[in-house]
């Protein structure tokens, strides 16, 4: 009885072993395939990155060209202006052209004189003590700021009032 049982058990074990061995073999193959797939998708991604980088530099160049061309035109015209004995009219048109270009590119100047200082769109370069107007008000524009669409292209550089009494506190 016992011997029979052990043989049975042995047989069962060998069978189990064979099954397990097969399973291990299959899993090994599956793992190898998965590993290969993983490496390939990693390589694909790296190749994709390289391509995107190339494309980005290309596009950057294209963009640059667009703005450089505008500057070249501007330069040509300004040279004419400088030779002009009565350049006022020409300059007026030139400035108009630039402003139209800004409009086309959705660049808008930030109006700031007399407004309350706003750290989102203004950059205070210094303050001036005053007692004749409100505190924290822009009294001078040092450099004009611009918005591009709804984002800030560059903040207005401004001088802001400071009420005299306040400083003493």
């Amino acid at each position, binding site marked *: 009885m016992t011997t029979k049982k052990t043989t049975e058990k042995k047989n069962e074990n060998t069978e189990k072993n064979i099954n397990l061995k097969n399973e291990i073999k299959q899993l090994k193959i599956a793992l190898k395939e998965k590993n290969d797939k993983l490496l390939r998708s990693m*390589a694909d991604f790296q190749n994709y990155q*390289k391509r995107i980088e190339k494309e980005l530099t290309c596009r950057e160049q294209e963009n640059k060209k667009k703005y450089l061309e505008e500057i070249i035109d501007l330069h040509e015209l300004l040279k004419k202006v400088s030779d002009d004995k009565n350049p006022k009219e020409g300059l007026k048109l030139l400035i108009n052209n630039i402003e139209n270009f800004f409009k086309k590119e959705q660049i808008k100047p930030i109006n700031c004189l007399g407004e309350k*200082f706003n750290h989102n769109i203004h950059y205070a370069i210094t303050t001036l003590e005053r007692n004749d107007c409100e505190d924290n008000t822009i009294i001078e524009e040092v450099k004009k700021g611009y918005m591009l669409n709804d*984002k800030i292209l560059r903040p207005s550089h401004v001088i802001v009032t400071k009420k005299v009494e306040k400083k003493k506190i």
Partner: protein
Amino acid sequence: MGKIIGIDLGTTNSEVAVMEAGKPTIIKSAEGQNYFPSVVAFTKDGEILVGESAKRQAVTNPEGTVHRIKRKMGSGEKVKALGKSYSPEQISAFILQKIKKDAEEFLGEKITEAVITVPAYFNDNQRQATKDAGKIAGLKVKRIINEPTAASLAYGLDKEGEHKIAVYDFGGGTFDITLMEVGEGVFEVLSTNGDTQLGGSDMDQALVDYFAEIFKKQYDFDLRKDPKSLQRLIEASENAKIELSSTMQTDINLPYISVINNEPKHFETKLTRAKFEEIISKFVDKTEKPCKQALKDAKLSPEEIDHIVLVGGTTRIPLVKNKVEEIFGKTPKRDVDPMECVAIGAAIQAGVLSGEIEKDIVLLDVTPLTLSIETLGGVATHLIDRNTTVPTKKSKIFSTAADSQISVEINVLQGERPMAADNKSLGRFHLDGILPAPRGIPQIEVTFDIDVDGILNVNAKDLGTGKEQSIRITGSTKLSDQEINKMKKEAEEHEEDDIKRKEKVEIRNNGDALAHSAQKTLDELKDKFSDEDKEAIQNALKELRSALSGDDVDKIKEKTDSLTQVLQKASTAIYQKAAQQHQQTQGNQQSNSDEEAWSGHPGDDDKTINADYKVNKDEDKKDKKK
């Protein structure tokens, strides 16, 4: 697991980076800048501002704005802002919070962990304070590492065995020198020294003073007293400094800089690099003493230093680089952006901690040279371009070059030259058993597959019959640098000739293809052409064929063009005739005449008939031309 970011928490500016797909990437602030000003402000309206917006309002709100909090870290000293007091940890936490928020926005995922850098001379208190600041900001600080260590990591200096490194950090407001020893990836600080009151901003100021003095001599007016003029002078000085890092001289032109006695005044001057260096040399010289002291403290002579790493924007100035060379007698490393290398090193450390950098797996090989096959006329047609990361697989469809061709030869090539004969042949094989068909009809798919070990499998399959043949080439990626450089150099040297030769082959191929299709058109439509046109085509065809049998490429081109013209004329006549017939017969035979005219278009007949799969082939052609 989430990403861990690396933060360079600086005195004036902070930077942050993260590992993305094995590469460190600098994270931009919401304002679109590569850095975050380390400024925190409390406004009267109860708002807390951090970074760029805090900086913009700083002069309007000096009582509420906190700068340079790093200097107070770990001191236990509180700072007052608008009547309230804050610990330095709290202030730093505001900066870290802003960085965390912008990094989350940039990466599109939640960030909870970070590596933060501190100066090598920071004591335990200061390090703990930095950790606490992270905690307050909601960041688990996985590790605090020294700034010079981070900079060295950015240069991969942890992998080069045992050696000694000097990190020369010259920023906007401070100068630090750190000597370290690295072995088995462990960095040990040997000595540090520096000057907390020395930086690039001193140079800017000196330059502004220099320009202002020139103007003053001319007009007896101090531009520094007018904030408007001063602002422009500061900007011009910064630009001049940057410009003179690459050029020997720069022009400073500031039109309408000021109005004196109701008259607009302009500022015009030139600044040579020599003069610039004279102005800044006293600041650069001041870095020498701390370096010497550090060497003395570490008991090292300059020759014992193996690598010098430059950190900070000021090290971009050539004079500074020269000074470093003079002190240490060696050329410093500078291929990583000196402003970003600390944050990049922190990100690399973070990548190691998060398990993103497992050295063996991420390093995938690239193909050192282009792999191609030889096509009609001895042209090398690219399958896998140089510098492609492997493993990779690319396929292209090719066809036969002659009618009833039953076998194609696949010649696998390596190299950058456009003609097959100039490249190295890695192996060749034949694919037989192609069914006899007109040229261009059979479709043979050629696949190049490079596995992770660099073994190249080339397979050619006749899509019509399903027959295939392949070859296995080992070592296609394992070329010596010498071999690669030689082949690249050859390609560069021969570039012009090669292009000409390829053009010649293309002209010949075009002529050949036209002759073939003209013959076909002639056979198919012999009843449609007028005798006159038929004869013209036959003559032109004959001339083209005789040109093709010779070597004169210009003649081939000329004859190809004239045959094209004759064909166009003849086909136009057919269309006109068809149109006339169409008008005469009207409605009934409409479809019939349409069809005839359609197939009678000589130049493109191949394409229209076989539109379905020729499209594919056309795309291939485009690829080839690139």
